[in-house]
């Protein structure tokens, strides 16, 4: 590759970069971080916020470095006194049309706009003027949108469109009345929004945040009549440390269990137990579909954003979805039936909380069909960010907490369940079990490396008792949209496909901690560390296959009888529905690889 290179000078330093680079990229290559709000390296360039302006010799005006291409001999300065003043003015102008409520904002201390204002030393507001005022949208169970805090950078619009292919959000109206929202300015609950929450990771202000359910949980924890039970998802344990200064991927399972007990939860269970249960049901369902001419390919159903996407955008594939509930919902149903029965607890006094890396789980828990225990199976869902806030609130320090064990019997899990937290994991876990169920042989190696990694769509062929099984892993819904479209046209054929809504899988979920300053959301190296943390937990486990989990064997012997049996059908399986409004979107030009 003889890429054409261009040489230019930035702040007196010579740099040589590919000819199509922008000034911002050139500066980045020599370690100069130009401040920005609307730019993200994986999204199209908007040039909306103008904070990244730089001085280029010979040009009349300052130019935005994110969308100005380099040219030979260019002389760029990024930090003159006048530039700094200009940037400060631009930030001040943004602040002028922004509520002055940092102290009471949910992004307080974790806000890009706030930290830029701090960085530029803004101490007064000199451009006081009229402020926009739009009603906030609390209709969604997962995401709150407060347009008054929006600075119109458009990152949410682009991530929703380019990465997720959902296009629930768009700019509407014009000038001072410009707003970001769903079609027809409808409430989010009536839009095609699938609640993935990626917009809440990308939003640089408090305009898009998760629906905060911590207050509900505090109330329950303080109610002496309630037994508050909590479950935590695999991807939470490798990310919960980040807001407390731990590097991504640090395994804090034991400390999180301890923290949850300190918060007052009566029982601490592991969603990984029900992930093992999911694998038992899902692997059997796959084998059943394969041997009984069932609808193929079968799609995994653990990711609630994907489920809603399928219901809005591809209802013709609803029969292809595995009928298995997600691990969260299986656990919810088991706690209020099996566990309650075993412990002789009245299920009506159980308050079931789950800690998820996901905003869509909040919606899932509230689906009317998720009441098979006779009660709402899961009462409240908290994201990793909300749990971190609760832990901070009572002043717990992870470094001072001992590692504690989950409660029995719903705390026992295998390595197969851990990898649910990373893209490809559910498929790998299902294969680890399905292979042995079908062939009766022992697997020599439990690591299916061909389905690991961060490529947007990965394929593999697995020999299963003389049959070739074609499997695929897909993450990010724009990739999913392509995959489904190509399955429809016959360009792709599979038997089993794992689909995760968020890029990276659950570890990149919309409810995960936001990265620290100067690190972009959805940063690949960041996600790789979380993934490494998950695979490390898996490889350390003695039992790494769901069907070998002793507690799983026990629950089938004592309660569920057999996979796909009548009781599991009632408690662990669900149904789907066509959802209105129908969503339509075009296919992204290329596959999105993390």
């Amino acid at each position, binding site marked *: 590759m003889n890429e054409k290179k261009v040489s230019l000078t930035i702040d007196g330093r010579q740099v040589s970069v590919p000819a199509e680079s922008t000034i911002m990229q050139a500066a980045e290559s020599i370690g100069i971080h130009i401040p920005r709000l609307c730019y993200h390296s994986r999204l199209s360039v908007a040039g909306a916020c103008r904070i990244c302006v730089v001085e280029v010799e010979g040009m009349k005006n300052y130019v935005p470095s994110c969308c100005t291409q380099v040219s030979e001999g260019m002389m760029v300065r990024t930090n003159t006194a006048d530039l700094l003043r200009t940037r400060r003015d631009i930030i001040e102008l943004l602040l002028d049309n922004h509520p002055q409520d940092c102290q009471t904002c949910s992004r307080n201390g974790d806000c890009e706009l706030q930290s830029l204002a701090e960085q530029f030393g803004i101490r007064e507001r000199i451009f006081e003027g009229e402020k926009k005022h739009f009603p906030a949208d609390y209709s969604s169970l997962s995401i709150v949108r407060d347009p008054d805090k929006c600075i119109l950078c458009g990152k949410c619009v682009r991530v929703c469109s380019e990465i997720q292919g959902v*296009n629930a959000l*768009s700019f509407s*109206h014009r000038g001072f009345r410009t707003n970001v929202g769903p*079609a*027809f*300015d409808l409430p989010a609950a009536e839009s095609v929004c699938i609640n993935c929450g990626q917009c809440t990771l990308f939003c640089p202000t408090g305009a898009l945040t998760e629906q905060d359910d911590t207050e509900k949980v505090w109330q329950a924890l303080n109610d002496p009549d309630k037994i508050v039970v909590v479950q935590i998802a695999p991807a939470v344990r490798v990310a919960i440390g980040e807001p407390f200064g731990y590097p991504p991927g640090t395994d804090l399972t034991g400390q999180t269990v301890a923290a949850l007990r300190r918060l007052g939860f009566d029982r601490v269970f592991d969603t990984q137990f029900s992930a093992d249960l999911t694998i038992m049901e899902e692997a059997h369902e796959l084998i059943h579909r394969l041997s009984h001419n069932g609808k193929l390919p079968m799609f995994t159903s653990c990711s609630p954003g994907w489920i809603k996407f399928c219901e809005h955008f591809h209802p013709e594939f609803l029969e292809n979805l595995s009928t298995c509930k997600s691990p969260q919902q299986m656990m919810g149903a088991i706690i209020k039936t099996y566990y309650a029965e075993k412990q002789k607890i009245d299920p009506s006094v159980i308050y079931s909380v789950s800690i998820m890396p996901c905003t869509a789980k909040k919606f899932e828990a509230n689906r009317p069909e998720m009441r098979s225990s006779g009660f709402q199976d899961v009462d409240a869902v908290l994201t990793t960010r909300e749990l971190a806030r609760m832990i901070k609130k009572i002043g717990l320090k992870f470094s001072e907490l001992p590692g504690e064990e989950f409660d029995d019997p719903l705390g026992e899990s295998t390595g197969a369940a851990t990898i649910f937290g990373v893209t490809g994991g559910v498929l790998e876990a299902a294969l680890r079990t399905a292979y042995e169920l079908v062939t009766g042989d022992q697997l020599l190696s439990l690591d299916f490396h061909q389905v690991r990694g961060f490529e947007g769509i990965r394929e593999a062929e697995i020999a299963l008792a003389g049959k070739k099984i074609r499997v695929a892993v897909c993450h990010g819904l724009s990739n999913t949209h392509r995959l489904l479209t190509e399955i429809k046209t016959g360009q792709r054929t599979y038997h089993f496909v794992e689909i995760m809504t968020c890029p990276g899988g659950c570890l990149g979920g919309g409810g995960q901690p936001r990265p620290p300053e100067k690190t972009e959301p959805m940063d690949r190296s960041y996600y790789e560390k979380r993934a490494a943390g998950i695979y490390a937990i898996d490889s350390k486990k003695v039992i790494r296959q769901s069907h070998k989990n002793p507690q799983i064997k026990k629950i089938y012997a004592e309660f569920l009888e057999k996979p796909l049996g009548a009781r599991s059908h009632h408690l662990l399986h669900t149904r789907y529905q066509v959802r209105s409004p*129908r969503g339509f979107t075009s296919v992204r030009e290329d596959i999105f690889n993390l």
Partner: protein
Amino acid sequence: MVKKQQVLEKENCSLSLLAEFMEQTRPLHDARSLLMATLHRTQELFGYIPRQAVELISEKLSIPAAHIYGMITFYNYFSLQPRPLYQIHVCKGTACYVSGGARVLERLKQELKLEVGQVTEDGLFGLNVTRCLGCCGLSPVMQINENVYVRVVPEKIPEIIAFWRKKKEKKATQKVGAFEYPGKSGYDKRGKKG
């Protein structure tokens, strides 16, 4: 009830015309570049852009409804509410007001049984107030669509309205189906070829 039924029939007819338009033009253009022309066609056919039409366009062109909504709200030409066939703007700028613009407005309200900002039930006339049309020397001034009326006296109002009403009747006889199908925009010509 009858009226509602008629409106519904008209809209269904327009929807099928819109679908036809997209089928004709779709093979010739990229969906994104077709959107603007399609919205123009919709505005022409319905007099506004109803939600059903947005849903249809979204499906046929695979363009998300949210983005279409963004486009509609960006341009003044497009309207999400039915627009009258004849939009009346009465000037209430200083000069017109002094020379009797308010009386003109009062008479219009009486004749059309309308308040400012409303549209008559038959969708023919809409009444609006504007600030200045730039010909204060000829006040009071009013405008119906692109036609400017100068030195208006309230007594002339019934005549003017009758004129436009008659015009509509004449037009109706030249129509194809319920709505005018002008055929003058380049799109359907090209579409027919394809």
